[in-house]
């Protein structure tokens, strides 16, 4: 029964705080006293067995600011593996660029989801720091089946081939054509969604992202947009091919101005895109959300385990050109060093990363995908081909990207430390 029947009152909500116990008079209750010998016996047994007093042993709490890659450290199995090494990770969650622009005081590690933010953080360190780049994952767009089919019918997306007659979970998305839909102010119903679905959506075709000022995903998405709008080359890399007389004279800002409306159309950005995409209301919240591949694959594996089938409502759009993101765990002190070392060397942690959908680097080589593909096959989840035509959106250099981000998001100045 809901509690609305209560008469509203102002006083009631104030819950009584715990009455301070009077330490002098604290006495062990009788049943505790009775159980004491037993407890002591157990304690001794543990001591004798050499199993040591694990819970009493020194457990180091490592405070880390991290964004979407907190998924890894939130995983119960990862937590158990780390505990074996006496490490507990306390997650302070905020966007990657937020991590790079805010104070890191009191933190042992920072774990931005991509290289731009990682480089900003590294630049700010006074000394050389240890870091690890354990895995990569492509930036993707999470959507729902009828939306993907609508895009395919509009000639903007192409389903990936699957063997065995199943519906595919993966589509390739032609970003140039997709951006044209957005620029032409098309609505979902306008490109035929209503005909393909029991639902209707008169909203405009757009991608919901987290804040460009705060997140790596949105910043990386911006670099794809800028790359496409700049004639498939990163802005700022060289003078623009066509002699555009009209711009501001600054090629980077010109591209930023072109890209801005493509992002700002969504209004206020919302963090935790994956969280809302995978929730039961996901399809209502946003037809297309900017997420990472690992989040989708981890979801499919978990869904398979839980329901004995794949989640065929949710499908992925792989943007072409593609952007691969590379999270970096950056140590900020001795305790942080222990964690980065572990991440580089511990086989179990690396294996678990694969199981969580990451493309893990082995000895710095390219073979990042075989283990992941094998794991997906073993778990009866379709294996995606992330970048079939091998097009890659080269990121603009850090300075150019920062200027694009600041222009699009009107962000507070970055790199100043404690913006508070």
């Amino acid at each position, binding site marked *: *029964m*809901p*509690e*609305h*029947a*209560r008469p*509203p009152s*102002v006083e*009631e*909500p*104030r*819950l009584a*705080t*715990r009455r*301070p*116990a009077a*330490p002098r008079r*604290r006495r062990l209750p009788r049943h505790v006293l009775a159980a004491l010998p037993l407890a*002591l016996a157990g*304690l*001794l047994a543990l*001591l004798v067995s050499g199993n040591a007093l694990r819970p*009493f042993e020194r457990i180091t709490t490592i405070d880390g600011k991290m964004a979407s890659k907190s998924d890894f450290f939130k995983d119960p199995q990862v937590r158990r593996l780390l505990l074996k090494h006496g490490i507990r990770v*306390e*997650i*302070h*969650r*905020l966007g990657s660029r*937020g991590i790079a622009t*805010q104070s890191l005081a009191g933190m042992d590690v920072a774990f931005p989801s991509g290289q731009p933010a990682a480089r900003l953080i590294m630049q700010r360190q006074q000394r050389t720091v240890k870091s690890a780049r354990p895995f990569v994952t492509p930036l993707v767009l999470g959507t729902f089946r009828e939306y993907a089919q609508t895009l395919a019918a509009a000639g903007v997306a192409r389903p990936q081939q699957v063997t065995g007659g199943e519906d595919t979970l993966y589509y390739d998305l032609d970003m140039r054509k997709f951006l044209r839909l957005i620029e032409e*102010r098309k*609505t979902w119903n306008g490109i035929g969604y209503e005909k393909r679905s029991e*639902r*209707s*959506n*008169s*909203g*405009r075709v*757009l991608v919901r992202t987290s804040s460009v*000022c*705060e997140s790596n995903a949105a910043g990386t998405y911006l670099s794809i947009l800028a790359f496409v709008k700049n004639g498939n080359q990163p802005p700022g890399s060289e003078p623009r091919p066509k002699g555009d007389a009209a711009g501001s004279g600054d090629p980077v800002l010109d591209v930023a101005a072109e890209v801005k409306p493509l992002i*700002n*159309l*969504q*209004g*206020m*950005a919302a*963090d935790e895109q994956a*969280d*809302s995409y*995978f*929730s*039961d*209301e996901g399809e*209502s*919240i*946003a037809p297309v959300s900017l997420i990472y591949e690992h989040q989708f694959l981890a979801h499919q594996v978990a869904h398979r385990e839980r329901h004995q089938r794949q989640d065929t409502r949710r499908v992925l759009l792989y943007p072409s050109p593609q952007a691969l993101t590379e999270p970096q765990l950056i140590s900020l002190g001795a305790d942080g060093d222990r964690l980065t070392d572990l991440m580089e060397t511990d086989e179990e942690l690396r294996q678990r990363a694969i199981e969580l959908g990451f493309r893990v680097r082995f000895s710095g080589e390219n073979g990042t995908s075989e283990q992941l593909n094998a794991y997906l096959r073993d778990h009866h989840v379709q294996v995606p081909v992330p970048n079939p035509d091998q097009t890659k959106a080269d990121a603009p250099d850090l300075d150019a990207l920062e200027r694009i981000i600041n222009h699009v998001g009107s962000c*507070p100045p970055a790199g100043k430390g404690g*913006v*508070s």
Partner: protein
Amino acid sequence: MRRRALAACLVVLATTLAACSEGKEQRTLRVLASPELADIKPLLRDLEEDTGVTLDVDFTATADLDVPPGSYDLAWPASDRSYLLRLREERRRVPESTAIMRSPVVVGLTPATARRITTGKPLTWADIADAAAEGTVRFGMPDPRRSDTGRAALVGVATAAAGTGGALRRKDVSCDRLRGFRSGQTLTGASSRELIDTYVRRQGAADALIAHEAELLALNAGRKLKEPLTIVHPADGMVLSDFPLLLLDPARHEPYREVVDWLRRDDVQERLARATWRRPVGADVPRPPELRAPIGNALSYPDQLAVVRRLMDNYGDPGRRRAGDHVVFLLDFSPSMRGARMADLRAAFRGLSGADPSAAGKFARFYRGERITVVRFAGRVLEQRTVSVRGAGGLRRLNDVVAGGGLAPDTAVWSALDHGYRLGADAVRDGDQRPLSIVLMTDGENNTGMSYGEFARRYARLPAGARAVPTFPVPFGEADGRELRRAADATGGRVVDAGSSSLSQAFKEIRGCR
């Protein structure tokens, strides 16, 4: 040896116990929460038992979440959007925030009202606005200036009214398209709780409530209504609140994390859904059948505080009944209007009288309580009729004037506008509180009567109240756009060109412009 070990163990045990209870004493978090979250109170004891963290909650948060620095450790509003927009504007640190539950802002209708306004197609905010303007729906909505529910509702309705398919921009709110909608509001409250309490006491005062789905479901389940409300998820979209828990004091991170982890546990999410009727944020959490209905499409939220502020300013104090607008239409009835143009004009008037089935038409239509004056002119003023909109009868008389009036030679544009301003001066002198505006529709050049210069001189001599009346010229066909633009600029109005679209479109565009 052994004895010493035993003693050591005892010491360990004692200090551990002491440490535990001591730690817990300090683990109280002060929380500022939205009034409607009072329904989570029954879960707080279990939270405390499971995590050792006590939440000391004030359920007094307002939509702006004005938190005196240091006064609270956490905030728990229905939505943090306004708050975050403000922090970003002030370039302040954005706190860690975690969504706990979701609920869309929807409308609950009495069953009779639902039957009356349902047409077989899914209901929209435009339909609600249409019925409100017509006087067939009287609704209650919390005050957008104080309640985050009310604010989300206002943004939702305004986004639907703008109908762009995207987030509201400044230019979408430069005119107030919600005047018809607002004319149907009969109840309000500082919070949705207050609104609902009032409604329970005075069920005859409204036949629809706009609030979170959760509150309407709870109201229905409480059996305090004569009949449960029919809950409608408007097909043109809704704003979804996600009841985020915000960490205001970063130093309290650890207990915050524990509280969030507890609240996001599947079993707790299930309990929350049952106890509060809000939708779980976690996937696959079992939920009551009432919470399984799809909610439709979430609307984008504007990314500029100025847009939200403008909306609220336009809407004003919902507790005060607002004087309806008074619009004076000066319509050119010279012979060049014959044929298609006259047909277009008549269609435009029928549309504004309620015949326009488009969403924009439903928001822009003449509304109950509004006063409309139609002045037909050619070389002189031919006819004038004023109607206060109460029902279909008055609107019919108005349409008769437009539909039946004959044409006459010549075009005296500036004499007609001067006539309009004399009506304005009369209204100001009589102390009429209605916001007055003039729409001047002409398709020809001024060829008789006053010149623009003469009009301008007479306008300058009007009392300030009359000078404040804006003129919205709608040039059509061969009209002289330049002079009309000068008139618009001089009076604070603007020109809407009907040349590129229909007259109907042009009229809709200037509805609610001040």
